[in-house]
């Protein structure tokens, strides 16, 4: 890929961005990862009636092959370490969707001694889906919003992309955006 601006380079890169974003957008592979009752609704979204395959959303069994970490359920403090580990095992660009009240803010278990009050306390989140549990339609809408976000991503930061636009999420390495 062209690293420096060259005459006409920006046009070339923009088209490249468009094509890459388009392929990212329609092959959004989430990790097969359910934590609590929300996972049931996630499975329904994959199944025949709602058919997530239409959007290119096909569950993958390994974090190495996944683009999207769907936090479907309650994040307990004991599960927090493995979630961070899984997040770091995923190749960039990686996206995180917090599904349900539990993953957003702790939900019904806010006062529990065992629950992390929102998965955004441990990893950056791209899309929050409210509901307890959210309906599959809400999940599909969230994926469509994520696709819109992906279409704004840019390959090279030199052309005005923020860290968020380049990587899809906040930078965890501490580099200022």
């Amino acid at each position, binding site marked *: 890929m062209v690293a420096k601006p060259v005459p006409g380079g920006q046009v070339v890169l923009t088209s490249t961005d468009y094509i890459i974003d388009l392929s990212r957008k329609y092959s959004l592979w989430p990790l097969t990862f359910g934590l609590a009752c929300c996972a049931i609704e996630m499975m329904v979204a994959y199944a025949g009636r709602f058919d997530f395959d239409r959007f290119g959303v096909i569950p993958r069994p390994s974090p190495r092959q996944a683009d999207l970490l769907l936090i479907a359920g309650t994040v*307990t403090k004991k599960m927090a370490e493995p979630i961070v580990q899984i997040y770091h095992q995923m190749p960039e660009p990686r996206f995180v969707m917090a599904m349900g009240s539990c993953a957003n803010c702790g939900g019904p278990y806010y006062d529990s*001694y065992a629950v992390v009050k929102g998965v955004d*306390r441990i990893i950056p989140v791209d899309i929050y889906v409210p509901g307890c549990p959210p309906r599959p339609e809400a999940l599909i809408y969230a994926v469509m919003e994520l696709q819109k976000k992906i279409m704004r991503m840019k390959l090279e930061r030199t052309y005005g992309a923020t860290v968020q636009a380049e990587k899809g999420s906040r930078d965890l390495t501490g580099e200022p955006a």
Partner: protein
Amino acid sequence: MSAGADFLDRLLAAVPGSQADTPVKDYPTVRLSAPKDLLPAARLLKDELGFDYLEMVTAVDWLGPVNLGGFVSNPNPNPFTQKHPGPPVSPVAGPGVTYRPVLDLLWSFGDLVKNRKVFLRLEVPRDRAEAPSLTGLFPAADWQEREAFDLFGIRFAGHPNLIKILTPDFLQGHPLRKDYVHAKDRYDAE
């Protein structure tokens, strides 16, 4: 209860100091008088009376009313009803229910052939919560006793590996005890 009367009589006769207690869910229930009675009773149930399935090991903490000074920061967090706080936390003690500083242990044994069930109960003081382990008789007791140890702090003498099973390593105390106070850990920090 009539169908189970024969084995109940044998159990009561074989274990001195035991007495029939209020039935738990209409199943025959026997209250033991001392921890040392548990192993003979369980052995009798398993070897001679056909109760070869340990279904459950659990406990009840009978210390006074629930302590909201623990982790529950605001019992009524709804911002729209601040003027009308939720119902006050009132003691549930009533006729037949008295608060006392004990942990009431409960074992449930099942007979899958004859479809019977029997409960054993045993009260131990909260500050010296100890009971014999059933792992020698029922391998299924292993994880259940670890759970009771983790959540209630009951020490099962003779358990081969009595360590936490549910709560994370950094959690201090036993959360299902009524006087449990949550110490903020790294995931609670604002």
